């Protein structure tokens, strides 16, 4: 996180730079860093900040990119995830953006990264001390769909008037027999602020609790930044007789055989064929590299020949 400019770096390489290091100008970065520091000081509190126009549309991670740009330094290693995968459009272009604008090393390996920008997932591999995970947040206000007035929701946060949040969970149980909120599941941070964990599946909520890594949340369109410092209590809201539960999957990952991971459903054909694979592509690849195999791994299918093909369509 030094103040080396892109100019310095490119000058060494004999190129001409038109942009400041990591795209944003230094004044903007200072402003965002102040918001981040305030967010860390008040865990779960939404700090307003003067969000800038970014060279990408709102909803593509403008908040996360601004947070990343403000904290990243030339010696950082960046990983970008979109829905768990490193190879989807959003992840590829943001990674390319920082590779070009900050000349940082990029990686797809969770353990190697110092800064991880993510959309909708927390990696399966536990994060460790010194890592920063930056979330892209579309709607930072957990009470938004219950109380449309921002003036009112800010007051509700201020005086801890949170009965309404449980009204939502009550309605879920009354209508569907269980808490049907599966993503953006509200949490209480350090016993004080109710926070929207961005649209991560509730499967990832337990990973936020006392996480070793610093968690930063940026909402560009809504102009809010919030944070959870390392080792902070994060509790998912629930009822005494309807406790919080994460999603459970009946079968392991079809490629790496992993269990207790969040799986994506992949449609194979229009005959109803489908498979479930790890949503975290890096975790899945790593397991396969270590010799783990699932029911639809190519080498297993080859070995099983005709049987394997049959199995493939039935799975």
């Amino acid at each position: 996180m030094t103040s080396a400019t892109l100019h310095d770096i490119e000058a060494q390489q004999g190129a001409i730079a038109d942009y400041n290091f990591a795209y944003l100008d230094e004044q903007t970065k200072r402003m965002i860093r102040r918001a981040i520091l305030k967010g860390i000081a008040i865990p779960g509190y939404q700090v307003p900040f003067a969000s800038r126009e970014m060279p990408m549309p709102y909803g593509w991670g403008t908040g996360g990119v601004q947070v990343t740009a403000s904290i990243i330094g030339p010696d950082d290693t960046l990983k970008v995830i979109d829905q768990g995968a490193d190879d989807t459009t959003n992840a590829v272009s943001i990674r390319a953006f920082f590779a070009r604008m900050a000349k940082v090393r990029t990686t797809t390996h969770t353990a190697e990264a110092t800064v991880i920008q993510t959309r909708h997932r927390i990696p399966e591999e536990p994060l460790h001390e010194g890592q920063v995970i930056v979330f892209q947040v579309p709607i930072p206000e957990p009470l938004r769909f219950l109380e449309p007035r921002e003036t009112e929701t800010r007051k509700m946060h201020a005086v801890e008037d949170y009965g309404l949040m449980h009204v939502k969970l009550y309605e879920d149980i009354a209508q569907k027999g269980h808490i049907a909120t599966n993503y953006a599941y509200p949490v209480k941070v350090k016993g004080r602020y109710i926070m929207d964990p961005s649209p991560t599946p509730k499967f990832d909520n337990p990973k936020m609790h006392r996480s070793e890594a610093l968690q930063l949340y940026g909402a560009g369109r809504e102009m809010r930044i919030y944070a959870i410092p390392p080792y902070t209590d994060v509790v998912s809201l629930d009822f005494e007789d309807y406790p919080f539960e994460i999603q459970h999957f009946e079968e392991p990952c079809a490629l790496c055989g992993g269990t207790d991971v969040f799986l994506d459903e992949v449609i194979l054909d229009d005959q109803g064929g489908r498979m479930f694979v790890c949503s975290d592509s890096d975790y899945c690849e790593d397991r396969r590299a270590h010799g783990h195999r699932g029911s639809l791994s190519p080498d297993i299918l080859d070995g099983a020949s005709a049987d394997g093909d049959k199995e493939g369509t039935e799975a």
Partner: protein
Amino acid sequence: MNKAHTSDHLPKSSLVPPRPMDLSEKPLLQVRSVSKYYGRRVGCEDISFDLWPGEVLAIVGESGSGKTTLLDCISTRMTPTSGMVNYRMRDGTMREVFRLGEAEKRFLMRTDWGFVHQNPADGLRMTVSAGANVGERLMAIGKRHYGDIRETAADWLEQVEIARDRIDDQPRAFSGGMRQRLQIARNLVTGPRLVFMDEPTGGLDVSVQARLLDLLRGLVAELGLAAIVVTHDLAVARLLSHRMVVMKEGRVIETGLTDRVLDDPQAPYTQLLISSILQV
């Protein structure tokens, strides 16, 4: 009717009400010289009265006389231009309501106070079920057991004559009278000591009005609620209230026991108001 009551008609700035209920009790609510101006227009001016625990006070007057302004000022939905409102908290201390912190005020409003709006849509969440509407106050004060909340909500629905099996229906699917009864249940579930009602029977047809009044009378007596009821309907005042305040052009022009005011009105305006009731 009763000669002793004629002394109730006092100058408007020093209205000391008769003591209708328990003489040993201290007042629950004190309103002192409350005025509200909208720019240069008068909303209500120099209003003072006391309310005792378990007492129902009706504020009557024609449309535009400042009744609702006064109610909003007392219930902290609006800040008066001048004057003071004191409330006896559950611990017995008298607190000035406009000096309470926002958190304390909100807590008071969802536990010890209730507010029944004329239009139920203003007081209900129309897009969540009846059960959640009743349960919201319970959850706001920290109840976290779904089964208990639901059971309490169902009991309250029964008390206000809404079938238990309507608990998961949204108020949008309810008739006007049911919505109003649901609003009452939602307010009473935390056992408040003071309920504000703004035209609780407005917009309902007469037979529904009668049943609602019957229900309110029962609940108020059973629970020992104190209430301030704003109404332009003198029959509502007659049925519900112990005491009455008559307003005109933002000022109180007469106050006294309900029966006395209605049967022996002193002020010319009150006489006019009472003689204007249609006789069928």
